């Protein structure tokens, strides 16, 4: 049933592209792209500042940080997006095709990273061999890039964004489903811009189990902390507030505070419980940044 559903969604996505290029709607969209609905163009932002981050995924970060973000859309609708270093709502680089726009909504075929690559190492020593070296077992997983449909709606100062991605380029496991839903609102006070956002990221059980279920090699060690684990699909819940101020025509000051409640399906995983118990780590993700960036 799930395979059928995924197949249908993929067909719908491909169908949307074909319809767009072959029907009168394509003409309308092309006309739109020449007027006020034109989304072509973009920006590149390179920044430097202070970042604090505590997460189960890596050691605490507390200090200077560089970041880069950008978006560029060509006139034919193909776009590139990048987000690295800080204030990342999406992970890494994305590639897509903006195929239809209305006054309030844009529709994209969106290729994105649904989960970053992971490298986990587990050290084992036999009882009574305290002087011996640790035997390290690795549980490394490739990043998952997925293809789906994204729509973004703007109503005055409120923005909505929904993504559903049923097709995975990671051939190490069956396709899962990655979906996101976001709402954000901004307020202007003089030349300061304040924003608040809330969102959820859904990953189906295939994705979560690929990254967070205990590997057979680890289970074979019979360690009571690393038992077998099977997860269901789970939601990460994210909230963020932030502020921006234009220092000059090209220099932007930004500060943000974000909290991510990691899905219980991930947090309850034996491997994640081991990592989140390490010094400098938390079960959830807290992030704070003060950044100055140059905008091209």
């Amino acid at each position, binding site marked *: 049933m799930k395979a059928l559903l995924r197949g249908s969604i993929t067909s719908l996505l491909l169908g949307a592209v074909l319809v767009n290029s072959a029907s009168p709607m394509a003409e309308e969209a092309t006309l739109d792209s020449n007027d*006020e609905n034109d989304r072509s163009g*973009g920006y590149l932002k390179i920044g430097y500042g202070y970042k604090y981050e505590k997460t189960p995924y890596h050691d605490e970060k507390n200090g200077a940080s560089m970041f880069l973000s950008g978006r560029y859309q060509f006139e034919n609708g193909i776009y590139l997006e990048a987000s690295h270093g800080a204030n990342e709502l999406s992970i890494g680089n994305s590639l897509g095709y903006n195929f239809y726009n209305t006054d309030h909504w844009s529709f994209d075929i969106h290729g994105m990273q649904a989960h970053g690559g992971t490298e986990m190492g587990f050290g084992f020593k036999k009882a009574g061999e305290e002087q011996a070296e640790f035997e390290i077992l690795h549980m490394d997983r490739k990043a998952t890039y997925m293809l789906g449909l994204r729509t973004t709606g703007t109503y005055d100062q409120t923005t909505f964004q929904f993504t559903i991605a049923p097709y995975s380029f990671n051939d190490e496991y069956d396709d899962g489903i990655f979906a996101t839903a976001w709402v954000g609102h901004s307020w202007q006070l003089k*030349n300061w*811009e304040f924003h608040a956002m809330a969102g959820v990221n859904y990953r189906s059980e295939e994705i979560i189990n690929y990254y967070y279920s205990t590997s057979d090699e680890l289970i074979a060690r019979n360690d009571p902390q690393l038992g077998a684990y099977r997860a269901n699909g789970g939601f990460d819940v994210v909230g963020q507030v932030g502020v*921006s101020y234009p220092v000059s025509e090209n220099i932007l000051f930004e500060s943000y505070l974000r909290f991510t409640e990691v899905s219980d399906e991930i947090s309850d995983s034996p491997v994640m419980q081991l990592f989140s118990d390490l010094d400098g780590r938390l079960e959830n993700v807290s992030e704070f940044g003060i950044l100055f960036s140059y905008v091209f």
Partner: protein
Amino acid sequence: MKLSVRMNQYTVSIQQQKAALRLWFTIGFIALNFVTVAAANETTLNLKPAQCIAIHQGKMCYVDIELQWQAQDKGEYCLYSSQQTEPLKCWRQTNHGQFEREIVTRHNVIFQLRQEKPAGVLISKELEMAWVYKRNAKARSSWRMF
């Protein structure tokens, strides 16, 4: 003997250059005096700052401006802006003035100093809009543009 001739030629050459230098100094001195007199006759209008910077193109921009003007003769002067038909401020029997105000705008604003009698625009300055993201709101389809 050849060497001596060259030396003489060199000496003559130097003297000619000194004479030319004196001429240029004289011309420069006269020109500078002329420019100074002309500057004193000019009406000036200084605007600070000259730019209003907003994050997104199309959003309102807020800036506290200061305008200072100086004219040669005392008289009746008024300061106008392109945002309104009424003058921002008028002065009587003076040749200088100052004006401060918060400007809220989406577009460039032109300030003009006008003389009442004889009526006419003496000088103008433009407050220019600048944006970090120089696109319309629709182009900000990226979520990250908040």
